[in-house]
């Protein structure tokens, strides 16, 4: 079949040639085949018995709770930060932009070590906290901190783009009417950037759910306390494929749903 048949509905009547299609197919197979294989291999196993096993349920519960808390913290702290970044020009803004984007490109293991160096019992801040009897590593708090570290930047980036796209004249008009910065933010900026914020929340949540490296290093691995789904998958993998496959399937399904949500948010309106 010639390419133009496949792409007949392209409105420009301009089709990509095989030189575009073949490399694309190669990449798509690399991503698609392992996902298909994961689903295929799970068909034969007794999914339900693994899914309701105690460690799977504990991991699922912990993942849902911690990632939700992480998203809330990211939302409360990240939205104002994104607003500042999008709205004001000041010395050092480039530095803030860089700092906030850093966790996005940083390997999570580096994040884990950095968190330990700061909040570990012998860490810069951790040693001081320890003198008050507060110890963060190996706690659920550590799980949330690791998740916020790696996932909040996704929310901030999205929110920043949302705020930056709003027409400044709207704000000027509001100011002329006597609105304060807070009023402008609350009644004009937030509603207009709502879609970008929701996108940010979903991406942030997906990332928090998938967090592994920083959690393992900073929070350790204890069922019901710090063993989130990705950790349970890893440990499960060492014990036998069954539980690892089932938990992988659940995370895959959740990720697909969330990504589909993001896409539909972007295409409508």
């Amino acid at each position, binding site marked *: 079949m010639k390419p133009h048949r496949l792409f007949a509905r392209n409105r420009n009547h301009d089709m990509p040639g095989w030189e575009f299609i073949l490399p694309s197919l190669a990449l798509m197979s690399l991503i698609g085949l392992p996902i298909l294989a994961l689903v295929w291999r799970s068909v034969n196993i007794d999914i339900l018995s693994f899914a309701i096993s105690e460690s799977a349920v504990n991991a699922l519960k912990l993942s849902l709770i911690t990632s939700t808390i992480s998203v809330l913290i990211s939302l409360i702290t990240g939205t104002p930060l994104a607003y500042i970044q999008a709205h004001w020009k000041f010395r050092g803004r480039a530095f803030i932009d860089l700092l906030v984007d850093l966790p*996005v490109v940083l390997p*999570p293991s580096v994040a884990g070590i950095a968190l330990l160096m700061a909040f570990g019992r012998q860490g810069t801040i951790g040693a001081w906290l320890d003198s008050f009897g507060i110890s963060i590593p190996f706690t659920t708090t550590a799980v949330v901190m690791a998740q916020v570290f790696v996932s909040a930047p996704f929310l901030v980036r999205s929110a920043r783009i949302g705020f930056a796209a709003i027409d400044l004249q709207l704000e000027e008009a509001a100011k002329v009417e006597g609105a304060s910065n807070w009023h402008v933010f609350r009644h004009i900026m937030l509603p207009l950037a709502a879609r970008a914020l929701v996108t940010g929340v979903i991406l942030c949540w997906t990332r928090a759910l998938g967090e*592994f490296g920083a959690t393992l290093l900073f929070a*350790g691995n204890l069922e019901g306390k710090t063993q989130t789904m990705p950790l349970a998958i890893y440990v499960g993998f060492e014990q036998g494929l069954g539980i690892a496959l089932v938990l992988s399937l659940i995370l895959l399904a959740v990720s697909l749903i969330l990504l589909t949500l993001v896409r539909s948010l972007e295409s409508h309106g």
Partner: protein
Amino acid sequence: MTINKSLVLLALQIVFFVNACEATGTSLVAKQGTNVVPTAVIQRDNPTNINPTQTLNVFAAASLTDAFMTIGIGFEATHPGVKVNFNFAGSQILRTQLEQGAVADIVAFADQKNMDASIADNLVAADEYQDFATNSMTIILPPGNPGTVSNIKDLARPGLKLVVADASVPAGEYARQVLTNLSKDPANGPDFNSKVMANLVSNETDVRQVVTKVELGEADAGIVYASDAIAAQELITIPIPDQFNVVAHYPIAILSHSPNRNLASAFVEYVASPSGQAIMSEWGFTPVHKP
């Protein structure tokens, strides 16, 4: 319009990054990379032969890291033109990698269970393995002893932070065995095991992670191999009496699909030789063949 475009771009970026991050976290390849001293260290140019002609791939338990690195250097020195590559990981991970088709010449596990399973999967011929060393468990404390642990009984003190390896790796199973054995000591009391397990703050994915957490002072105590305590000298150790300790057997085997069987058997011989056994002993293992 601009907002939509930017968001699509952002989403694309994020999909990429999430995958990238996941890869560093969960894949086996990354696992090899994080826990292992880079193989480049032992791939030194051999003085007698600038172009190595043969490469030997050795899969070895994480606890063998230091000892086998030294053995690799020794083997390369006595076998000009040979390069030894190591893949160190938890025994369970190694076996899974081999089951999934990883090609290697030699495998050395930290327990018999994984060797038996490898034989069952035809990865190793039934009569092709031998024990080359044994190891025992010991208690380690961070420098400065923040938990003020002075004896084994202190492990049961409420509020103490203990880390061990996960039950799925040999070191984790041995640690649990030792704790069960210690409960039989009247000095510790029958509820010793449950009290100690209540202090458990993390099941690390391999024994080297336990050492690191204790070295950093994040945990007050850990249970690791005696050889790990040798490798990390600044740690304080509390020995576990022989009658409560375990003897961990380390079997080594040439893999059925090894592309370099002759070289592989030379390596196994080297490990069992007096010089190989001396290296094992130097790193805290008990050699099977007395050097």
